[in-house]
């Protein structure tokens, strides 16, 4: 029964892998082919021609771009992300702990934001055009206009400085107990939650409204079902796919938020690592971290698409 689904899902995954490859080309090209010389960038304007030539040689910059690309891709596929130019450390090793930290932060933000957004979205639909709905859309409008650092620093100002409830700088270390760790990330997780909450809620509201305005909901009402039964039996099964879609898209958006939030709270995650090394113009690190971010983003989008495919009754029960 599910053969077309399996086929579609397989196609979507294959497409995702292809896209990821293309993205790797783009990231590589973005850092290697664009005007601007990496060696020059590292050594600065005052570098001597000899030292430049030496560094170029050392970095393999004299090989054709395509050779360098495949060398890099081969490394990435075997888990070798190269060596950071600024520190000489192995990138894969440095990333491991940071990736875990970032996922930990994003996970807790999502745990709070997703159910909250869906519940608020439902409330907005239930009291559609009432003051609750207007308040919620107003807040949504406001928060999509707030830069992440505004939210972040307001939180720090009130909850870390004026009332010293939570630390303003999120220091975490290996072997830190979970409770302390959670307290450390309380503010950045809240900031991230606020960053995605409004948007997710607004999209959830739209998704549910779309279903609520369909003819089959009217049919259910005309059968005498109570408002709650209409939502549970008729609206919800059809709204679930669009809601999953909304959630995934917003989790993908968390990725962008994470970069800024980590910098605000000096949190040792991928985002801060990336920004640090962009400033240092450490190209191998930027490539590796950029690729990981892109991979997570693309994967979340694939999950969203797959959810939509699986939830579609037309595909689950073909003619």
């Amino acid at each position, binding site marked *: 029964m599910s053969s077309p689904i399996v086929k579609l899902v397989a196609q979507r995954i294959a497409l995702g892998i292809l896209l990821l490859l293309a993205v790797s080309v783009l990231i590589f090209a973005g850092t290697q082919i664009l005007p601007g010389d990496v060696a020059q960038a590292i050594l600065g304007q005052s570098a001597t021609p000899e030292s430049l030539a030496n560094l170029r040689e050392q970095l393999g910059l004299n090989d054709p771009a395509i050779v360098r690309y495949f060398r890099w891709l081969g490394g990435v596929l075997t888990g070798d992300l190269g060596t950071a130019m600024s520190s000489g450390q192995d990138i894969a090793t440095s990333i491991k702990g940071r990736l875990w930290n970032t996922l930990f932060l994003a996970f807790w933000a999502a745990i709070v934001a997703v159910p909250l957004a869906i519940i608020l979205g439902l409330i907005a639909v239930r009291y559609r055009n009432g003051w609750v709905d207007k308040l919620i859309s107003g807040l949504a409008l406001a928060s*999509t206009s707030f*830069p992440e650092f*505004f939210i972040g*620093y307001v939180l720090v*100002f009130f909850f870390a400085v004026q009332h010293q409830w939570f630390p303003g700088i999120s220091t975490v270390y290996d072997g830190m107990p979970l409770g302390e760790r959670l307290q450390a990330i309380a503010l950045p997780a809240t900031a991230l939650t606020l960053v995605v909450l409004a948007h997710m809620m607004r999209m959830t509201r739209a998704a549910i409204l779309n279903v609520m305005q369909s003819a089959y909901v009217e049919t259910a009402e005309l059968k005498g079902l109570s408002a709650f039964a209409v939502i549970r039996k008729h609206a919800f099964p059809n709204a679930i796919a669009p809601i999953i879609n909304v959630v995934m898209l917003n989790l993908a958006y968390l990725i*962008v938020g994470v970069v*800024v939030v980590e910098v605000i709270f000096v949190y040792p995650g991928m985002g801060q690592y*990336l920004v640090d090394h962009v400033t240092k*113009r450490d190209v191998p690190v930027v490539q590796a971290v950029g690729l990981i971010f892109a991979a997570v*983003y693309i994967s979340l989008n694939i999950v969203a698409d797959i959810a939509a495919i699986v939830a579609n009754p037309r595909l689950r029960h073909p003619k």
Partner: protein
Amino acid sequence: MLDIKRIPIPALVGIVLTALFVLAAILAPWIAPHGNGEIVGDVWEPMSAQHWLGTDNLGRDLLSRMMYGARITLFIAVLATALSFSLGAILGFSAAVFGGWFDTLLSRLVDLLMSIPTLIMGLVVLSVLPSNLVTLILVMGILDSTRVYRLSRAVAVDINVMDYVEAAKLRGEGEGWIIFREILPNALSPLVSELGLRFIYAVLFLSTLSFLGLGVQPPDADWGGMVKENKDGIVFGIAAALIPAAAIASLAISVNLVADWVLNRTTSLKGGRG
């Protein structure tokens, strides 16, 4: 045709605030109490009659710097939006009307660019490009043009299949008439409100880059850069960094209110963010 009394209050607030910001930016050299880089007092002085917003991390007058910051912020955001808009709209319309390989090629390229979050792609390319205004505007404009491309292509494709466009084609009209007389007038309203949203996005994107230290370089500073300069004061309870941050937020809200109003008057088409 447009009666001021008919404009809803939120939109009116948005228009007034936006106008204030623009005026401050344009008139900064004449109305700012102090120069942009002029050190006039102690570090992080509180608000006072002399320095309405206090002083910053080097003892410069914050109000004056906010005005000059508005100038830089708006200047870059306007240019980046203009670039992203003209690039995206022209290519989007052309793709919709000409179709074929031109459309396929551009659309796949845009899909590819949009499969990476804009900020990440921005950081990747800024790690190798020289830090100057031209680079910044180009990077912001080109990355954001993908969204304008998608919207204008979608709008134009929708219009292109309308019977009135088919009627024009059957009449034998050329591509110029079809694009400028049949499609453009009908695509204008969704695009105008999108313009507002793209501008907000440009302001936020620029601020974020500057906050991360990759945008406008010192001693000049846009609002995002000013947040970065003053952020270390926060832990001492000094709110100087919150002022430029709040300015960004209120500019974005104002433009959003205006864009929302324009959009409600027209259609429900909207581009995304991120």
